[in-house]
């Protein structure tokens, strides 16, 4: 019953926020060609939690980076909110990221000399938000992710899990429509991994934000609405949870 309702909700809101067509990425290393992505086609819907799952070197990170506009594809097209992002210049890409995208990294990538609040408010600073305003928002969000006692801590004064919470807060601070997370639990133990994952997914669901995550860990991937299996730069298969029932039965 609950599942059925979910389907109808998802179906009625089936609007792709990202559409990928014929996407390929080929690296040239000397005279060698490394095909990192090969003819990828798929849509990602608004509000969904989508996970790219694959072994190391399969091309997951490359796909994520191309989607985020950090790298230009060799061929193909990416439309995010109806904008072909591979055609944007550096300046427009930066503005696009400021407004629409949040990032969570495996190695947290916090700035060492800034405390938790300052780290979280960085994206707002780049947008030109006043110090008073961004500090207030950062403090609120840090409290929401359970770091009310670590507001003025520097990254080196926090555990891995705490650092990733700061990372998550930083990704969500601008209220982006899309959050990219590349192996966000890669450096964490399994218990902390699940906590962090729940936090991320919970925040995204609450505001109907699209969460796109990369992992090589099936247990982590299972939390997603959809698992995209990547193998040698291609989409091997796509599993949809609950409404397709495919991955459900496997469990």
């Amino acid at each position, binding site marked *: 019953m609950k599942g059925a309702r979910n389907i109808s909700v998802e179906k009625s809101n089936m609007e792709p926020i990202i559409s990928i067509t014929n996407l390929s990425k080929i690296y040239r290393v000397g005279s060698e060609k490394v095909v990192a992505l090969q003819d990828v086609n798929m849509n990602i819907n608004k509000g969904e939690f989508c996970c790219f799952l694959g072994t190391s070197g399969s091309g997951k990170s490359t796909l994520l980076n191309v989607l985020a506009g950090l790298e230009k594809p060799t061929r193909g097209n990416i439309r995010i909110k109806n904008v072909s992002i591979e055609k944007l210049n550096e300046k427009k890409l930066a503005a696009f*990221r400021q407004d629409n995208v949040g*990032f969570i*990294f495996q190695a947290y990538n916090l*700035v060492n000399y800034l405390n938790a609040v300052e780290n979280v408010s960085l994206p707002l*600073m*780049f947008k*030109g938000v006043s110090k008073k305003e961004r500090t207030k928002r950062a403090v609120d969000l840090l409290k929401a992710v359970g770091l009310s006692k670590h507001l003025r801590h520097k990254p080196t004064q926090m555990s891995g899990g705490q650092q990733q919470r700061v990372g998550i807060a930083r990704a969500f601070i601008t209220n982006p429509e899309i959050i990219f997370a590349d192996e966000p639990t890669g450096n964490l133990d399994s218990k902390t991994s699940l906590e962090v994952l729940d936090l991320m997914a919970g925040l995204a669901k609450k505001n109907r934000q699209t969460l796109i995550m990369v992992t090589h860990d099936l247990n982590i991937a299972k939390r997603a609405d959809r698992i995209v299996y990547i193998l040698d730069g291609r989409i091997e298969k796509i599993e949809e949870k609950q409404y397709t029932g495919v991955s459900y039965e496997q469990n």
Partner: protein
Amino acid sequence: MKISDVLGMSLKNLLRRKTRTLLTLIGVLIGTTSIAVMMSIGVGMDRTFENQLSRMGSLHTITVNSYYFPENGGFAEQKNLDDKVIKEFEQIEGVEAVMPQLRAFLKFASGRYVAHVDLIGIDSSKMEAFDFEISEGRLLNGDDKGAIVFGSQVPYFFYNPRAVGNSGMIMFGDNGEPPPVNVLEDKLIMTFDMSYGESYANQPGNVRRKTYKAQGVGILKESGEYSYSAFINIDYLKKLMQDNEREEKRIAASQGGSEGSIVYYNTSYSRGGSSSRNTSYETVLVKVTDVNKVEEVQNKIKEMGFGAYSLADARNEMKKTLAVVQAILGAIGAISLLVASLGITNTMYMSIYERTREIGIFKVLGCYLKDIRGMFLIEAALIGFFGGAIGIGVSYTISAIINTIAVRVMMDMGEGASISVIPLWLALAAVAVAVLVGLIAGYFPSKRAMKLSALEAIKNE
């Protein structure tokens, strides 16, 4: 990004690496200090020179002579400096006033005291234009006849020829003693007879000459050009000179060239000679309103065939020399600032190398390239600014020390003259140059930061 945030990030990073920042800053400080101190010596020389120049007379005045020595050698040429020419001078653009001068050498006497006086006939209405400033009494009036205005030193020329040990030497300047004659109140006479009052005046064969009544009406303020002369209305002096000419002719005729007789008379007046016709003046002063036009006017007068001299000549020559000296001093200072700029560049490259990852994260999080460049440029500029500002503080201290030592070493500098002067413009310019050097030194490093690949930076490991 708000500019205050860009600045804040730059400051934060500078403060984070205190030792390195401090060392780089000291480099800039030394550079700025050496430029400022070097230049301050140039400025000091310039000030001292201008000071001396202004004591020599007005920079606005051109002195025109009737004779002219061609610059490429050859014989002196002579042209009549008459009223017609003076009219022409007045027509030259930039000329404010023209004052012809008639000059005679007379002996003044008051009681037992006498003085040899360079008496200059002038047009009283032009005294103010030519910066005659009165210290006591008044300037000349148009209807004055025997009225005399004395240069500030002239009253000290009076001496007692019969006093023991007095050889008739003129003592310049007052040694605390008042002049022997009060030229404004004591009775004065003047004469073309140079022997007047001297012991040899009684020798046989010496002809006594006319004396004229003189009335001291004013004493001028101390000034470079007028201190050693006395001034009288030009028309009256003309009359005196004509009178004297007649007298000389008479004496010459009566003596008939008798040998052995000593005739003392003045020959230095009235170069044109023929007093009945249009007078030719020996000297004409031309005043130019704008100091910078003096040279132009002077050249025009030279083209007309007259000798023209002004302090501008000396000034231009000296300025040329000073410019070279200043350039050399500045260049010496600039070398150390150049070295400092390499220090800044090096520091910035190191900083960027260390912060590669951070820069990458910033880019991924949507920081504009111009803001990234801004952060590094401002960081470099701040090093320049603080180094420069502290450097100026140090420069003022060093400048003060130099001047204190200089005053002790050589006392003849004159009051207020300093070896090293740092005017406000020099201080501001030095800081501005330091900031500019910072910006230039930070330019390529900041370009590098902009070009760093965001992906490379955030790749794990």
